[in-house]
């Protein structure tokens, strides 16, 4: 599985090494531009920058402590109108890559000429925590990464089980840092394009002077496997617990009771791509008689109406493509655990239809494909005793 992998030289530390490598790739014209998070001028946040001039890479940060913009969304915005003409590398986290793959399948992004490079993700801090004190946040993040501790991270990151691509690299290149100490990293191709790039960069098995590659790969995949198992367990425990907290009309409405209908969750969601969201369209803007009648039948009508319809309806639109990135939760000004609820809904929906969002461009979208012989449990069987009568009637 990890054929043609290589050791990423990381003498000067992990992040500088990645940046150095990208600079070299730009200089060698392996890529013509790089999409990578960069710290903003006020040094209080990060933004994706598309960089052509290698000098700007000095400001870049391949693994920032927060995720202000989902990388899949950035890729979607970049390539929504067609294929790139220049060769661009995007340095993103696995959930961002999954979103990009999902958007490609939804025909909202184009991966031609775009090289996806993912990294093992330790999670990110909640946006509001970080913005309160960026310097302290950065330190907290570093410490947590060193200690392999996910508890300061966002709740959705704490229960993420797809933080690495050790199992099945779906991107062109994946940089694995797990299991190897002191920022040592392996770089694993997931496609022919990835292999070609490694060869161009002179990173091949033969070029591995230290001879540590097999052990490093072994350590990496063992550790990733191990961590995936514990995280999967953690996820199912957390989801079971969460389901108890949300199940039923009362509890659900308690959770969404403080929603202010700002639709931030929808706007930042990488896979919610509609230009005009159904729930903001004229479909739900009705004459006052309608609102008054609805109010009269219940004694009151929350206004603006359709809060639950928005969340449930949005889930019905995107749960099958949800990559559990948690961007929605970061953007919620009311601290509603919307990312956690949606990850719960997504896991259920994707399991029901045998799909994993963003796993591969090859998997058909579940609402586009179908099997003749499937899902019979949603069909309501017709009780046979009526049959005789039916024949008689005919």
């Amino acid at each position: 599985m990890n054929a043609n992998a290589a050791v990423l030289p990381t003498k000067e530390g992990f992040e500088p090494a990645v940046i150095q490598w990208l600079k070299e790739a730009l200089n060698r014209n392996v890529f013509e531009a790089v999409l990578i998070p960069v710290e903003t001028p006020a040094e209080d946040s990060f933004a994706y920058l598309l960089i052509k001039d290698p000098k700007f890479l000095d400001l870049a940060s391949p693994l920032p402590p927060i995720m202000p913009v989902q990388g899949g969304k950035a890729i979607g915005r970049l390539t929504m109108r067609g294929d790139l003409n220049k060769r661009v590398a995007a340095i993103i986290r696995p959930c961002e890559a999954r979103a990009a793959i999902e958007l490609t399948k939804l025909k909202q992004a184009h991966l031609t000429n775009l090289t996806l490079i993912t990294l093992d993700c330790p999670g990110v801090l909640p946006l509001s925590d970080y913005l309160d004190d960026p310097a302290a946040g950065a330190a907290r993040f570093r410490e947590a990464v060193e200690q392999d501790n996910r508890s300061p991270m966002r709740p959705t990151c704490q229960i993420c089980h797809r933080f690495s691509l050790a199992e099945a690299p779906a991107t062109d290149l994946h940089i694995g840092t797990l299991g190897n100490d002191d920022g040592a990293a392996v770089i694993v191709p997931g496609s022919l394009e990835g292999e070609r790039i490694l060869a161009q960069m002179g990173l091949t098995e033969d070029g591995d002077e230290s001879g540590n590659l097999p052990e490093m790969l072994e350590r990496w995949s063992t550790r990733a496997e191990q961590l995936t198992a514990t995280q999967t367990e953690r996820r199912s425990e957390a989801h079971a617990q969460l389901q108890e907290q949300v199940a039923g009309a009362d509890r659900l409405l308690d959770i969404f009771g403080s929603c202010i209908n700002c639709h931030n969750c929808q706007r930042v969601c990488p896979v919610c791509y509609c230009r005009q969201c159904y729930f903001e369209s004229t479909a739900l803007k009705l004459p006052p008689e309608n609102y008054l009648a609805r109010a009269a039948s219940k004694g009151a009508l929350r206004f603006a109406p359709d809060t639950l319809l928005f969340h449930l309806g949005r889930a019905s639109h995107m749960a099958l493509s949800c990559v559990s990135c948690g961007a929605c939760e970061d953007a919620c000004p009311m601290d509603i655990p919307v990312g956690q609820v949606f990850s719960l809904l997504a896991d259920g929906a994707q399991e029901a239809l045998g799909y994993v969002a963003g796993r591969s461009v090859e998997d058909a979208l579940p609402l586009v494909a179908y099997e003749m012989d499937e899902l019979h449990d949603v069909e309501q069987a017709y009780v046979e005793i009526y049959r005789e009568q039916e024949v008689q009637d005919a």
Partner: protein
Amino acid sequence: MPEAATSSAFATQGLRTNQGAEETVRQLLRSLLQSGQVEAVLALGKTGTDGKGVAYSLFTDPDAFAVDGEAVPLLPYMPANGGGLLSRLTLEGSLPGPVAAVIRPCELQAFIELMKLNQGSLDNVFLISSTCGGVYPLETGLEGHLEEKLPAYWRSIEQGELDEAARPTCRACESFAPEGADITIALLGEEGLDEQCSLYLNTERAAAFAQRLEGTILDAEPDGTVLERSSVERSAFREALFAGVETGLKGLVETFGRCIGCHGCKTVCPICYCQVCHFDSHECEREIAYYEGELQRKGGLRVPPDTVFFQLGRMAHMAISCVGCGMCTDVCPADIPVSTIFSKVAASAQATFDYVPGRALAEEIPLRTFREDEFAQVAT
């Protein structure tokens, strides 16, 4: 400006009830619903079984305004701009029967401004507003912290002051006395608000609606000194707030650098009424050639692009009508003081045209009108 505001806020008849402000309003709304004088009331209410959430609701059941009912019309909290909601309510046609709305002065201004922009109808809307002592930030409402603040809030209101924990936007608000309301509830600087309450009935309809309330007719005009003092204090706070805005290109880039592009400020803005915002439309879905051109020119660019363009462009679209309600700051997940910046720009834009948004329906929106002999210095 404040003088004009106070005089038109209390136009006609005053009524003092011998019940607290909260009870008076509840009783008034209850009687309006019971007698069928209004079909519904738009007011704040608690949501969920735990009552932790707060949202505007269209109440038809009079019991909602009972002492332990779910309606909380005077709660110092603004989960949405009520003016925008009234516009949404009447967007597809005017109301078939009277509906009362308990809203704050900035919400009232927003509603009037939206009427000028043809985004609804004033017909059958019965407006109840109050001299406003501000509201708390949205995050105060989480986990029940709002309840703790209420005693301090009402204490400072009675003294004609604003609680320091109120939103900075509110503390810097100069149009806290409603104009154009049918009923104005006098709150700011009124003593003994848990025992008595003064209402000012500004229209005939208001006088008719308030008939069921027991109280004494007030002869004297309200004492404007407290309002004037509050106005001076708030203006000073406003100036300090505006002075803190980082300006220039550098300031703009640094302030909006952490924008995450959720456009929540636009969604909750009552004045931003467009069905599809220009900045969410296909106009702003850039071609590959755009990115490659910018890359060629600058060596790098932000993706998604147009962060500063969105902010400046939105200012150009709505600064003239901005009522300074502060929803944009409240909603911002990146804690950008959007409202402060927009208010500062709005103050400049509105001063340019000597315009006060939402003051009176008859005042034309500046970009829809012009004079031949103006702004000679702008054109050469």
